[in-house]
């Protein structure tokens, strides 16, 4: 009987191993379902917002044709035009939801949109579910699958030691090294199968191949590190129970305590800037501007000679100028906030290397596009689109022109460009691979030792 068959028989005939495997099959299926549901929700939200924008645009075209006024502004008024800038579902959301559900996916762009208030009034979702967290595939891989690895490998040799089989095993095999390597390899296959199946199914369900591969690579390397650690402890420990205790403590430390401690440490070293200060600064600017409105308007027209012949009167023009000036004056406050966030991100990058779990989770959400990186790119692109929108309609506003139906139809639309970059993934994979090699060296040292202990 080969080692493969031995492992297969032991797993399939043992009630506990069967139960644990069935549980992980169910968890993997659940993780996929949760990811697919989130992608469906996200798609629906974006589609609804897009439909709203196109519907409003179509109605505006009709109003212009019929000279029908709805609301405060006349039909075709540039100040009344509205468009969405929507973030499509992240390419890997099936595999990792990250904190994407928390972040707004649509900005409403008008002439008056300001970069600091693009996403106002987006907090209506229930915090209860958000606070409890999601159990997506990445969370299952990072938090729960190491437990599967521990269950499979903690008794790699310590189980034979407990059962007083070690002498017979060693006498028959000649060397335990081959036995250990075969067992470890085979026992690693099981979580590997789950992760591979998840990645393949995610691809079949629409995840981009590169994303699925990168996610699979990080997950596999992460579980390989755990397998080697569990194997090393499983070989060294005098009893399977001791091995299980040590490995569970390691899990506790690396997966539960350390990531939470890192988060706390970052909070202490580089606390999130309070938005309260930003709000107050903005209000001070707004109040000051109210008092200097006509002066601002005159100065704006001086700064923009292309608007020769412009009319300086009217609420819309004043408000437009006020918004631009507010944005400009609030920019240093926003930059301070952004710099504080960048500082936090740098601390996170430095400290995350302490915890393979934090690192791997961050990497998975990064490749899936559900960490802050893709959203930051979206915010930047939405702001750029807001600028394009303003440039497109500014002349209309100041020269008192309304849009024709064709002009309304051909207003700019937002298209999101996916950010690129595999550097982070390569570094992460390299680090995990290095950890794996170190553990493999330690393991090798143990199994080369022929002394019976």
């Amino acid at each position, binding site marked *: 009987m080969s080692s493969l068959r031995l492992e297969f028989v032991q797993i399939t005939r043992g009630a506990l191993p069967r139960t644990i495997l069935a549980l992980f099959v169910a968890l993997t299926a659940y993780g996929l379902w949760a990811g697919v549901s989130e992608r469906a929700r996200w798609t629906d939200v974006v589609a609804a917002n897009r439909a709203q924008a196109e519907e409003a645009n179509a109605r505006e075209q009709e109003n212009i044709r019929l000279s029908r006024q709805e609301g405060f502004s006349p039909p075709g008024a540039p100040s009344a035009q509205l468009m969405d800038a929507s973030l499509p579902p992240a390419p890997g959301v099936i595999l990792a939801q990250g904190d994407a559900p928390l972040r707004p996916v649509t900005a409403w762009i008008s002439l008056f949109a300001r970069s600091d208030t693009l996403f106002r009034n987006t*907090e209506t979702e*229930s915090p209860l579910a958000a*606070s*409890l967290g999601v159990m997506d595939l990445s*969370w299952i891989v990072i938090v729960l699958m190491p437990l599967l690895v521990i269950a499979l490998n903690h008794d790699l040799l310590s189980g034979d030691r407990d059962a007083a089989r070690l002498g017979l095993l060693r006498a028959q095999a000649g060397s335990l090294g081959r036995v250990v390597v075969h067992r470890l390899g085979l026992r690693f296959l099981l979580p590997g199968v789950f992760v591979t199946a998840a990645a393949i199914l995610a691809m079949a369900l629409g995840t981009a191949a590169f994303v699925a591969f990168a996610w699979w690579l990080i997950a596999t390397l992460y579980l390989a590190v755990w397998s080697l650690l569990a194997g090393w402890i499983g070989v060294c420990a005098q009893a399977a129970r001791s091995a299980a205790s040590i490995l569970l403590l390691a899990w*506790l430390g690396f997966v539960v305590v350390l990531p939470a401690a890192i988060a706390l440490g970052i909070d202490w070293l580089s606390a999130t800037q309070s938005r309260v200060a930003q709000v107050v600064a903005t209000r001070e600017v707004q*109040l000051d501007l109210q008092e200097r409105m006509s002066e601002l308007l005159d100065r704006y027209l001086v700064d923009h000679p292309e608007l020769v012949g412009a009319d300086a009167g009217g609420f819309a023009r004043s408000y437009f100028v006020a918004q631009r000036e507010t944005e400009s004056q609030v920019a240093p406050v926003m930059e301070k906030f952004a710099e504080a966030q960048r500082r936090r991100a740098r601390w*996170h990058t430095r400290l995350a290397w302490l915890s393979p779990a934090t690192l791997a989770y961050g990497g998975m959400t990064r490749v899936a596009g559900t960490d802050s990186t893709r959203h930051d790119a979206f915010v930047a692109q939405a702001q750029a689109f807001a600028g394009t929108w303003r440039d497109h309609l500014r002349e209309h506003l100041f020269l008192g022109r309304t849009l024709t139906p064709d002009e309304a139809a051909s207003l700019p639309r937002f298209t999101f460009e996916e950010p690129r970059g595999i550097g982070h993934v390569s570094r992460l994979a390299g680090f995990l691979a290095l950890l794996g090699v170190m553990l493999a060296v330690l393991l090798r040292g143990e199994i080369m030792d022929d002394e019976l202990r």
Partner: protein
Amino acid sequence: MSALGTGAAELRQAWRDGRARTALFALLALAAITLAIGWQQQARQESDVAQATAVDRRLWEGQATRNPHSVAHFGQYAFKPAGALSAFDPGLTPWLGTALWMEAHYQNSATYRPAEDQRDQPILATLSGAFVMQILAPLVLIFMGFGLVARERERQTLKLALASGASPVAWLTGKFLALAVVAAILYLPAWAPVMLADSDDARQRALYLALAYGVFLLTIAALIIAVSARAGTARGALLTLLGGWVLMALVLPRLGATFAEEVAPSTDTGQFWRDVRAALEGGIDGHSPAGAREEALLQETLRQYGVAREEDLPVSFAGISMQAGEEHANVVYDHFYGRLQQDEQRQRRVLRGVSLLTPWITVRSLSAGMAGTDAEHHWHFVRATERYRRDLQRYLNGDFTQNAKGQDFDYQADPRLWRETAVFSYRAPRVGEVARSYAPDALLLLGWATLAVVLMLSAARTLGREASSS
């Protein structure tokens, strides 16, 4: 040997185990660090809120002569204070907005959720006093308690102990008492809020919080003893307890959250505002009176004042129509925000159902509730700000109505009009005002405690049968 004797013997062994001492002290040290950082953060937040509130009020009062409706649009900001015990349990704070703009026509939602600004979401949670008590303390109890009975069974000393005539219930109670003493040590951090409370309400909340954690840890201790008593081996006991902890503390709450979202889905923001706008557009929008409602209001106003034309009114109809628009909007907002609250309440009920499978959801809810950092307290703040906003709009529109006749939006009011408005001063609910809404959670926790004790006693009876059959 009596229960106390058994317990004392067990504690002596535990104390001599260096690993146990290390684990206890490490946890207490961790709790102290998290509490210290939490207190620092709470103090900073309170200071930021106080400062921002003062500055915003200064800005409000500092507005020069202008139209009251422009003042109404400038509005005021309300900044949510930190929960009474947020240093211990931040609860839902990261997922709830911190600033609310009270302006004309719109009931805005609270903006700027701290979670959105965090670039680095932790895998499980950030360390806090609540995290230490809910997640880590039970783990320490598990590692210290899993073998209390199971190992005795393995060593065959269980048979010896029971064969010597010891009552299984007393013997097992002794084991439980030993673990309860350990739980009491782990429980110490839950008393920190009591000692540091700076008001009667905070102290009362802290006491309830401490009580909840006390019951929780004793429940865990009893469950550990029950499992250890039934397990064939110490390893089996450890694996069962750790598996139970993973399932009940980590997996079930997340599954529960998904289930709650499926049963009572949160309203998507876009859909919410589309629905609100549709309902608002069905009536007066406040700026551009039109439509049948506007006409009906005009006719009624003319009748009320006994005149035939709008120009003959002694007051500004624009003011009347703006206030009518506000009141229509209030009905719309009450309806839709009320629905949001109802959705959350339904989710909370679903989660209560799931807490029949795990006490962690219950203790989490109680802890955040007593700390003042849950959705209930958030809605209390939102309702208070909305009451203030509506009163303010009524006041400003009233002045507009009385004094803007013939000028409407060209009317410039004296700054005293808004300087004399009441200062928005939010008082968080006292624990007595909200205690009722946590009664089901308290009962669930007591239910779990009862179940744990029943399981432990049942295990004791099984031990008795085991001893007599051997």
